């Protein structure tokens, strides 16, 4: 691998979750009945007039400021012409040579703890396209002689963020996408759900001999709908290109489609004519010229960004870098952490619960952290009850599982499941005495020096108590009586 260097750039599309579409007042809502959020503007009826959504412009300026872009004093919308029925106008309103945000960068934290700086080329505003179903909606794909189109998504505000070809490995590309997603989520501009398509990503990848400055022929990969898919697709494509070059073949500049099931990228088109979108300025929309006062006002609304937050968690709260990284990766975890700490729980304990036990359970259940029923009070109660010995660590995990299912209060679940540990010395002492009486042989050997038998005896106490004994106290009481 070291003989070859990989060069990766990403183009990400982000749907803004404004209330209405980019150029008309139709609701911007995922999952509605087909063609119910459409009007003459987003259906491209003749004579209709698109007018930009001020909130969408505000949000892209916010994104640009967070990425350190220059906000262009003047930018234009252009028509991008193409023949594809997913845009009823036969063009998409986009931006061309004068985007709103120019330049910038994102500091990316890699899994090994090092950081890298990925340049941003540009961030521009456009509109999303409609959704096409090939064949009938009920799924007759093979005899498809027609396509069905739902224009609810046509005209939804879409931000395109183009990175410089600054990434050198699939892992770095994945880290960039994670950081971008966390940043957009912190900015509160999009719900960034990759599985629903509100965050999408295409990748450009090429390889070149290590030490070379010239770029190799690049290939564009599409259709990756998770960060994991992105990483897998880039690994596959890197291997494919290196193998081809080592076999003396050349790389064809093309678009390839990631096939998740096959775990491979596949060429999308055999012969491709260089496409001419005939961009020209959208005559219906006057130029954008954001006033500097407005830009400064938007700058004032920037929240703490993931990178600053990670640094604060490490320095002020003493969290380990990898814990801070997982915590800040998504806003639901960050919010739960912050709110639990705010009601008095100890930060490190909260971070452990949120990034380990809870994250593990959510992952198993395939639940998005944003849809979890776990509230700050739940986490704080669990930490408190484990700390004062009321429940065991294992018991707390059972409680958490049930909180996820029911959302019930922690103490209620503890009682319902009889998870309270016997920590009362009197009650536990009786069980301990009983076990000592029942196990004379083990007691004899322990007294003779076989220290490991203490574990066995603690186990017997736990068993006799029906699992409710506090094991730490049981051990103390046993040692006290047998030494």
């Amino acid at each position: 691998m070291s003989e070859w260097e990989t060069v990766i750039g990403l183009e990400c599309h982000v749907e803004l979750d404004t209330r209405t579409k980019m150029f008309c007042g139709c609701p911007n809502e995922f999952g509605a009945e087909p063609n119910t959020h459409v009007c003459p503007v987003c259906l491209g009826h003749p004579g209709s007039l698109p007018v930009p959504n001020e909130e969408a412009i505000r949000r892209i300026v916010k994104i640009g400021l967070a990425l350190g872009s220059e906000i262009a004093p003047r930018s234009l919308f252009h028509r991008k012409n193409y023949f594809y029925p997913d845009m009823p106008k036969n063009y998409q309103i986009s931006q061309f040579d004068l985007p709103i945000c120019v330049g910038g960068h994102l500091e990316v934290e890699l899994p090994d703890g090092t950081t890298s700086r990925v340049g941003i080329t540009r961030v521009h505003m456009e509109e999303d396209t409609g959704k096409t179903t090939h064949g009938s909606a009920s799924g007759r794909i093979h005899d498809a002689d027609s396509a069905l189109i739902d224009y609810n998504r046509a005209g939804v505000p879409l931000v395109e963020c183009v990175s410089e070809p600054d990434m050198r490995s699939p892992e770095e590309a994945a880290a960039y996408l994670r950081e971008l997603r966390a940043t957009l989520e912190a900015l509160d501009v999009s719900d960034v759900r990759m599985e629903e398509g509100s965050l999408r990503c295409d990748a450009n990848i090429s390889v070149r001999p290590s030490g070379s400055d010239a770029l190799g022929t690049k290939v564009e990969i599409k259709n990756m709908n998770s960060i994991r898919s992105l990483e897998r697709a880039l690994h596959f494509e890197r291997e494919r290109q290196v193998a081809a070059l080592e076999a003396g073949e050349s790389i064809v500049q093309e678009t390839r489609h990631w096939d998740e099931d096959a775990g491979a990228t596949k060429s999308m088109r055999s012969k491709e004519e260089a496409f001419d979108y005939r961009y020209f300025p959208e005559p219906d929309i006057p130029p954008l010229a954001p006033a500097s006062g407005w830009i400064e006002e938007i700058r004032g609304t920037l929240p703490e960004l993931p990178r600053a937050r990670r640094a604060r968690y490490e320095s002020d709260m003493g969290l380990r870098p990898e814990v801070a990284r997982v915590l800040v990766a998504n806003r639901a975890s960050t919010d739960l952490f912050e709110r639990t700490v705010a009601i008095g729980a100890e930060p490190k304990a909260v971070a452990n619960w949120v990034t380990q036990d809870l994250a593990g359970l959510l992952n198993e259940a395939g639940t998005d952290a944003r849809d979890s029923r776990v509230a700050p009070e739940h986490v704080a109660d669990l930490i408190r009850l484990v700390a004062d010995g009321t429940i065991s660590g294992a018991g707390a995990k059972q409680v958490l599982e049930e909180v996820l299912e029911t959302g019930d209060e922690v103490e209620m679940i503890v009682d319902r499941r009889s998870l309270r540990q016997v920590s009362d010395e009197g009650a536990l002492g009786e069980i301990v005495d009983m076990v000592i009486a029942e196990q004379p042989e083990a007691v004899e050997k322990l007294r003779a020096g076989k220290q490991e038998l203490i574990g066995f005896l603690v186990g017997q106490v736990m068993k006799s108590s029906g699992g409710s004994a506090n094991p730490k106290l049981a051990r103390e009481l046993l040692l006290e009586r047998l030494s």
Partner: protein
Amino acid sequence: MPVEIDVDRVARLARLELTPEEKERLRLQLGLILEHAAKVGEAAADDVPPTAYAIARANVFRPDVPEPSLTHEAALSNAPEAEEGRFKVPRIVETGS
């Protein structure tokens, strides 16, 4: 003098199949239109920057407030064909968009 134009390329971009006669007619007509447009360049002085807009306005926005959409029936009423609440169009052939 009409401006020379590559009719074949323009026809390909517009997905139009033209007969040789149509091509010749359109080559002349489009050339004359371009010739006419080129006169603007003659009239514009050096201190007039090129623009795509007739009026000097900027930042025309609308507030992010929902307005009624068309009814589902009205939306589909102009569709040549519809099925399952969607616009039905001929099979899409990838052309490199």
